[in-house]
């Protein structure tokens, strides 16, 4: 029965089965009173095997939507953002992509001084880490407050991915984890560079 339903298209509200036989993943939900698992998205049904070490051995049912948009930043996801403004204790950035999918309309995020890097967080100079217009890869720390998501670049692979030199406008080349150099003018500018 499971292989036949493997490629089935489902619509929201369709009953997928009993909660005793499967665990609802993304795009499905269970109702406690009746014990049924329903779909909440339109898309293709897929089954994931349970982790061998987990106590719950029910397979996970997931629904992948046919549209590739509509992502919302979630805590833990890796985002690509463009820095809009650099202030004394934080930098604000526009989130443009979440986990390899681009968003339809930008979300606002901020990178606080203590979230720029993992070591010596009180000695961070934001202006030597980011400049307006830089493209950074960051991870979402939390939903933040009403105005912005909290982002963090406190890992080696997070930080400035692409930056333009301030006078010539050329894309700079990273030369170390804290510096980038312009190929045209030779100017070195400080940034918190991501380890690509």
């Amino acid at each position: 029965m499971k292989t036949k339903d493997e490629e089935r298209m489902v619509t929201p509200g369709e009953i997928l089965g009993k909660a005793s036989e499967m665990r609802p993943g993304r795009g499905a939900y269970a109702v406690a009173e009746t014990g049924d698992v329903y779909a909440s998205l339109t898309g293709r049904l897929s089954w994931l095997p349970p982790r061998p070490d987990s106590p719950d051995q029910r397979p996970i049912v997931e629904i992948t939507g046919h549209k590739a948009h509509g992502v919302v930043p979630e805590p833990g996801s890796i985002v690509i953002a463009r820095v809009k403004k650099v202030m004394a204790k934080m930098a604000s950035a526009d989130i443009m992509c979440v986990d390899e999918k681009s968003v339809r309309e930008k979300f606002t995020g901020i990178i606080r001084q203590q979230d720029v890097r993992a070591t010596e967080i009180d000695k961070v100079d934001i202006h030597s880490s980011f400049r307006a217009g830089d493209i950074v890869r960051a991870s979402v720390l939390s939903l933040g407050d009403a105005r912005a998501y909290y982002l963090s670049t406190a890992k080696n692979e997070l930080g400035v991915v692409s930056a333009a030199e301030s006078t010539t406008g050329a894309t700079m080349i990273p030369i170390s984890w804290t510096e980038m150099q312009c190929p045209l003018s030779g100017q070195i500018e400080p940034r918190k560079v991501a380890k690509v």
Partner: protein
Amino acid sequence: MATRAGSAPSTYSPSTQKRKQTRLDLKDPDWVRSDGRLFHQCRPAFFRTGAVTAAAGSAYAELGDTKVIVSVFGPRESKKAMMYSDTGRLNCNVSYTTFATSVRGQGSDHKEFSSMLHKALEGAIILESFPKTTVDVFALVLETSGSDLPLIVSCASLALADAGIMIYDLVTAVSVSCHGSNLILDPLVEEESYQEGSLMITYMPSREEVTQLTITGEWSPTRIHEAMNLCLSACSNLGNVMRSCLKEAAAAASDDTNE
């Protein structure tokens, strides 16, 4: 619109004098509906998703002559002035085009439809799946010929499903109009204007749950029961039509990506 000989003709506009002179005697048991339908018969419905490419999701629906197009934007960032909320927000707006009614005009006497659409949909959307963000639903009525709000609700839930917003189930809606001892399903504009009472149900067919019930006029409990049963079975049928529309659209979209 008499014109005296020799005078310039007055500008033409659809005249209210064209209304039927005799009042429809809807309590007459032999009375037949103007489009030949039975009392408990709905007009055929047509749905299509993906009508508006700029929106995250959209749907176009026709119920006889009533035509509605709904676009859904989101989940997108809430306005800065809004307070933080750990569940998502829903924002609905229903507007009529100036050419929607038979007399060209503003169509502004349906301002309450926006809040009614909100109440019908908010029970069906899983708001916890998009915290801090807002989903905007914009409904535009292109032509009205009765039973507008039920079609708006059904079309909006189809647009939400098309946008990939997590919902508990599709929401279908049907309204019933009461004329004396007759209950008329899916009334037209003229049947609505002479009605003694109306009942509209918005229903989630697979979950078997009602999200909104609107009653106007005087109803006895037995009549309410009868009308509700009528509506619920019509809603279930409408739900099947909507589901097949969604599946066709999804299958067509996945065929395009596979090629």
